[in-house]
């Protein structure tokens, strides 16, 4: 273990990896601080850049940009009452109320320290828990993997949005897309309709760039205005960290509680940092001694929820690295990058590429340590960042989308796919369909099909064999219980129709 960590440190402290960490953080900071642009979008836009990098700098870039984007999303939340990323939405009113009380330093500083604490907590859990889980998972057969993938997909449907039918449709759509192209076993073309470019399947990169980035451009086009208002921005002066100290002393347990809840929820496939922040905020209020102070600018809720969303980000990497099942949209993208680099996420990665994996873990720690200095810098620069003209920024983002989609195969077909999925993503979100299940379905579809095929060869038509091994029995029962919950949730009369997405996106 220590030897692995030492060799991993040698890999991390290379100029290129450190440069990737810093530039990823700077990019994430910029994207996260701009309302309407999400951490998922930041990650999706970085994918084309990772084509030309070694695996470790590529992962360092993604890890630092996503952590920083989630954290920077708190800046417009506290200053403008507009969440920079959906992960900040849970406590936007609280942070803004605190700013309106003249305590912008306390609001921003608390959120920054909480994010760094949560991120570090989640990273330590990832470093300690993931290898243990991997050593257990190495004995898994196709049956366990099949149920695990089914469970992950079911959880995605259960926790995504208000309407499980719509989440299920998005998921099935993603899984159907994953079947396009030549069948891996028989070589038979499926759903290609004679289009040669579809023989290799639907590349997940144009789909991701389309649904997360291009759809944001279309949304801006439809709205025809920018998310930032014309209100004068409050000045952030003085020592930010000094303002946090009293909060730290008063609510030390809140940092821990928020981090633990965030990590736990992050591990659940499909949940992610957004849900973690909402649940942490609600629990913080429920167990607070002063629940009536919530909503009036009370830092206690910021401590819990601020730690939770960043901890959730690290937690989401546990199922992604151990089982190859992404915890959220960001890890789904990262998983795609790992696969592109020839690394197969799963328990064998912990033995075959242990130094590389521990180097990724160290990148998590470094990225979260970097949050404090870079976050302080971002807060100081907040007035400038929030004044970036979005009418000029949006077309430039679209140019990056075009280049990223073209660069995969040097083909215009990728651009067409990206633009089409941008439109599909916009229509989906405008009608209350979450887009994260689409991506998870696209990524996990082949795993489900492969394991189902392998398991059915072993079982020779005996369905009971899917429940014979103890772990597959437990996973199978849990998956069936989750399906039951989904059916119950779907059967309940919808109280309100989910509102069309306006300024925020459905995933972090």
């Amino acid at each position: 273990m220590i030897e692995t960590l030492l060799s991993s440190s040698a890999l991390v402290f290379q100029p290129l990896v450190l440069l990737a960490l810093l530039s990823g953080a700077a990019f994430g900071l910029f994207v996260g601080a701009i309302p309407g642009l999400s951490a998922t979008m930041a990650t999706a836009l970085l994918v084309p850049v990772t084509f030309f990098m070694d695996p470790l700098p590529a992962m360092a870039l993604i890890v630092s940009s996503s952590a920083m984007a989630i954290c920077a999303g708190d800046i417009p939340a506290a200053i403008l009452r507009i969440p920079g990323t959906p992960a900040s939405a849970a406590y936007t009113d609280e942070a803004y109320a605190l700013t309106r009380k003249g305590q912008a330093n306390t609001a921003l500083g608390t959120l920054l320290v909480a994010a760094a604490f949560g991120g570090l907590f989640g990273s330590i859990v990832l470093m300690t828990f993931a290898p243990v889980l991997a050593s257990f998972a190495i004995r898994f057969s196709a049956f366990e993997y099949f149920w695990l993938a089914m469970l992950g997909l079911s959880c995605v449907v259960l926790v995504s949005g208000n309407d499980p039918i719509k989440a299920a449709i998005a998921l099935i759509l993603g899984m159907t897309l994953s079947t396009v192209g030549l069948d891996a076993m028989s070589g038979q073309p499926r759903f290609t309709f004679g289009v040669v470019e579809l023989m290799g399947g639907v590349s997940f990169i144009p789909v991701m760039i389309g649904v997360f980035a291009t759809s944001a451009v279309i949304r801006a086009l439809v709205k025809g205005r920018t998310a930032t208002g014309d209100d004068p921005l409050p000045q952030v002066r003085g020592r930010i960290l000094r303002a946090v100290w009293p909060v730290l002393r008063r609510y030390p347990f809140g940092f821990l509680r928020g981090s633990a809840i965030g990590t736990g929820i992050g591990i659940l496939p499909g949940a992610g940092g957004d849900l973690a922040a909402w649940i942490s905020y609600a629990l913080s209020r429920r167990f607070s001694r002063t629940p009536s102070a919530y909503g009036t600018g009370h830092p206690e809720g910021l401590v819990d929820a601020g730690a939770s969303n960043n901890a959730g980000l690290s937690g989401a990497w546990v199922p992604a690295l151990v089982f190859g099942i992404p915890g959220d949209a960001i890890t789904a993208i990262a998983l795609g990058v790992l696969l592109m680099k020839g690394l197969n996420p799963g328990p064998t990665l912990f033995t075959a590429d242990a130094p590389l994996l521990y180097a990724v873990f160290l990148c998590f720690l470094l990225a979260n340590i970097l949050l404090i200095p870079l976050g302080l810098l971002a807060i100081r620069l907040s007035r400038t960042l929030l004044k970036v003209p979005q009418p000029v920024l949006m077309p430039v983002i679209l140019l990056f989308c075009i280049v990223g989609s073209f660069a995969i195969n040097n083909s215009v077909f990728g651009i067409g796919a990206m633009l089409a999925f941008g439109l599909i993503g916009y229509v989906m979100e405008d009608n209350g369909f979450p887009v994260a299940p689409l991506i998870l379905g696209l990524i996990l579809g082949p795993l489900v099909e492969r394991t189902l095929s392998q398991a059915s060869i072993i079982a020779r038509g005996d369905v009971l064999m899917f429940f014979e091994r103890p772990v597959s029995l437990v996973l199978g029962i849990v998956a069936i219980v989750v399906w039951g919950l989904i059916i119950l949730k779907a059967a309940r009369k919808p109280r309100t129709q989910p509102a069309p997405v306006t300024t925020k996106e459905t995933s972090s």
Partner: protein
Amino acid sequence: MTRDRLIGLALCIAGCILVVSALQIRRVIPIGIAPGTFPIVLAGLLGGLGLVLMVRRTPPAAPRLSWPAARTMAALAVFIGMSAFALMAFERLGFVVTGAVIVLAVGWMLHAGWRMLIPAALLAPLTIQVVFENAFSVPLPAGVLAGLIP
């Protein structure tokens, strides 16, 4: 009619088409599940869920099917037109020219000031082309500017 019902109908039709298409996938290896089985199940589920969306009770506040607002129509028309232009012009005119037109079109729709938009349209595509070609070795088409871009 609500939007959900229309989407449900579209999904039902798409599911049926995909089931028919998947039924035509031939089985060549007699082991494991046939290559068409998984797509048939998924297409069937898609159509079935579309049917549920179509027939289920919707709350009274559900958005009724109506012609989109003029602003939405215009924005989507600009996006679709711009997409068609990008696909046709990308390799012929090159990234820099196509990109400049896209920046101008999208920026105009977002009410960007010309003072910022024109420099952005000139500089952003050029910078991206130079950086991606030289730093990441992505050969973006030069088109009409072949030989002029460093």
